[in-house]
């Protein structure tokens, strides 16, 4: 039923090609769309660090610009279009919620290349990239499992989406491996960034007897709470090193620099191709920040050994035998989870008693 699009489709081609190209310059203009402010100290901050790294790497050959705090939806589509219109030939859209907007704009600008973070829709000129955060969570889970005295570890979830569920499962599996008595407590904050609420979430975990917890939300508030209570926590997204050596005993860092530098380079030399990649510790996209001296040397060594095994591909964090929370079989002995299965994960593994939010 094309009744109401009739007028649109015919004129669309004419008009979009007639749009003026802003400027013809030698430099490659690279644009970034951020979902938060660059000063959020977490997700967006890390993307912006990588943008600066691109500028450092290529100097005069590139020019970067960004638009921050772009709401998902209509505003995102406009912001992306503005970047494309102003001569940006490579555009990174750095939030899942920009997915449909990115794809829509990409259709209108076939000669502009788009990189969308954490989504699943690709096209000739739209690539997707994501990080295997669960690999890093395996390392943190190992440390947490060893460091807990109460045998209760915690996880502050943002939203019950596959990425976070993977993290919880991975952390739990590896904590359990080194400490069979460990229990995992999960609290969903339903926000990526709300310091006061994250602090409350941390306090709730601590009150439940948790003494080591991980967070999948972006502020340092949970670490501040951990400090008050003498508990341990981990840096999230960025290193959060000013809470080291404790309560922050290690961190999981999103490092987009290698990927951004590589992809900008490919556009510069004309070898860029669309793809959907999911990079992890081995590619330097997920980095484990310094494990502090609050962690005994042998635990530190164990965690680093695990990290190395994941980096080389020797160990996959989701390796069978594993059952689902309801006791049904998931992975047989030696079998590893497929990427497809992971990317829509909505169940806990066996042993986690927390209910999965519906």
């Amino acid at each position, binding site marked *: 039923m094309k009744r109401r699009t009739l007028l649109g489709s015919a004129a669309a081609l004419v008009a*979009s090609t*007639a749009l003026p190209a802003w400027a013809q310059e030698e430099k490659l203009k690279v644009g970034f769309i951020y979902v938060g402010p660059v000063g959020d100290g977490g997700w967006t901050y890390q993307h912006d660090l990588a943008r600066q790294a691109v500028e450092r790497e290529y100097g005069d050959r590139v020019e970067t610009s960004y*638009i921050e705090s772009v709401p998902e939806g209509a505003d995102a589509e406009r912001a992306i279009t*503005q970047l494309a*219109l102003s001569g940006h030939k490579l555009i990174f859209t750095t939030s899942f919620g920009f997915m449909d907007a990115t794809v*829509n704009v990409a259709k209108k600008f076939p000669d502009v290349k788009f990189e969308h973070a954490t989504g699943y829709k690709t096209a000739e000129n739209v690539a997707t990239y994501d990080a295997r955060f669960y690999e890093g969570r395996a390392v943190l889970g190992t440390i947490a499992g060893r460091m807990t005295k109460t045998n209760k570890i915690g996880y502050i979830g943002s939203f*019950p989406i596959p990425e976070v569920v993977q993290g919880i499962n991975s952390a739990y599996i590896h904590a359990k491996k080194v400490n069979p008595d460990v229990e995992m407590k999960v609290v969903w904050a339903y926000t990526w960034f709300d310091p006061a609420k994250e602090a409350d979430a941390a306090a709730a975990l601590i009150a439940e007897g948790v003494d080591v917890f991980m967070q999948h939300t972006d502020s340092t508030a949970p670490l501040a709470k951990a400090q008050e209570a003498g508990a341990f926590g981990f840096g999230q997204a960025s290193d959060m090193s000013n809470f080291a050596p404790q309560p922050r005993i290690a961190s999981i860092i999103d490092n987009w620099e290698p990927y951004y530098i590589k992809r900008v380079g490919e556009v510069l030399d004309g070898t860029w191709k669309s793809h959907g990649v999911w990079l992890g510790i081995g590619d330097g996209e997920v980095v484990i920040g310094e494990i502090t001296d609050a962690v005994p040397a042998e635990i530190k060594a164990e965690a680093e050994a695990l990290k190395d095994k994941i980096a080389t591909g020797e160990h996959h964090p989701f390796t069978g035998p594993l059952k689902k929370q309801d006791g049904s079989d998931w992975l047989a002995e030696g079998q590893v989870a497929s990427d497809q299965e992971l990317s829509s994960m*909505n169940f806990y593994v066996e042993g986690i008693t927390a209910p999965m939010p*519906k």
Partner: protein
Amino acid sequence: MFRLEPRASAPLAWQVATPILAVLATMIVGGGLFAAMGFDPLAAIRTIFWDPLFGPASGYSRPQLLVKAGPLILIACGLALGFRAGIWNIGAEGQYIIGAICGAAVALAAYPLDAFWIFPAMILAGAAGGWAWGMVPAVLRNWFGASEILVSLMLVYVAQRIAAWMAFGPMKNPEGFNFPGSRNLQQYDAAANPELIANSGLHWGGVAAVLALAATWFVMSRHVLGFHIRTAGAAPRAARFAGVRPERLVALCLGVSGALAGLAGLFEVAGPAGQITESFGSGYGFTAIIVAFLGRLHPLGILLAGLLMALTYIGGELAQMMLNLPAATVQVFQGMLLFFLLGFDILTRYRIRRRA
């Protein structure tokens, strides 16, 4: 010393002059701010106010003004009726969200059916949802005397949480890999609200906004209802003698403004936004309050104020992109513009006299 003397009617000259004065004042003070931060003030002001209209990519940004201003104008029209009558609906944001949810619900229930009636049914559902959400404060005020300002504001929070609940629960896209958010209605032809003419920025929401402007103008200046509304706002007691029934006026104003906000939400969810997400309400309902006031509760003023607000949003994005101006600077600039507009407004309503 000076004193203020209320004017019997606002002179047209001042009504036109004050917004211009306010914009100029904002440019001067804002320019100073930009200069203090090390940005070229002239370039910044040109990028914000000029480029979206006449700059190199204005072919794209001009229609976008319409996309951004459409919902603001549509909502502000409804609000203006109530504000004139002294009925303060500040919960348009909630009515906007509920309208979108109701409209989207129709589409999602019908999916993937392809039928002509789906979009009209969505429009009805969107308007009805917004109307119902607006009627809650109306009924509570009429029956119990509860303040509609506060009830409508509380209902915004409730609506926001319903949107989050919908995005994670009942409306979650079954093919969305367990990510929150409904199906994208842009990709469902029978329910989509696309541009009517390519690159015009005009979708059904824009059409509705124009109709709402015309209707508001007609009601306010040509219809007995407009007289009732103005009387009720200016002199509630006199209005009673003139046969105005305040309960009906409350229900009417809140209901109409709710329905218009609901429509704005529906057109947005079926068009530019595409889907119900956890953060669907993006503040249009609150910004529309500002638009209504900037427009002096007059249709023509609302049209211009809506476009001006849209201009600062789009120009602000351009300034970020072209000049690396932080988003915060643009926010400050907008705040300043509002302060000046609200402040200078006194010149239209009062005469300043030197105290004898």
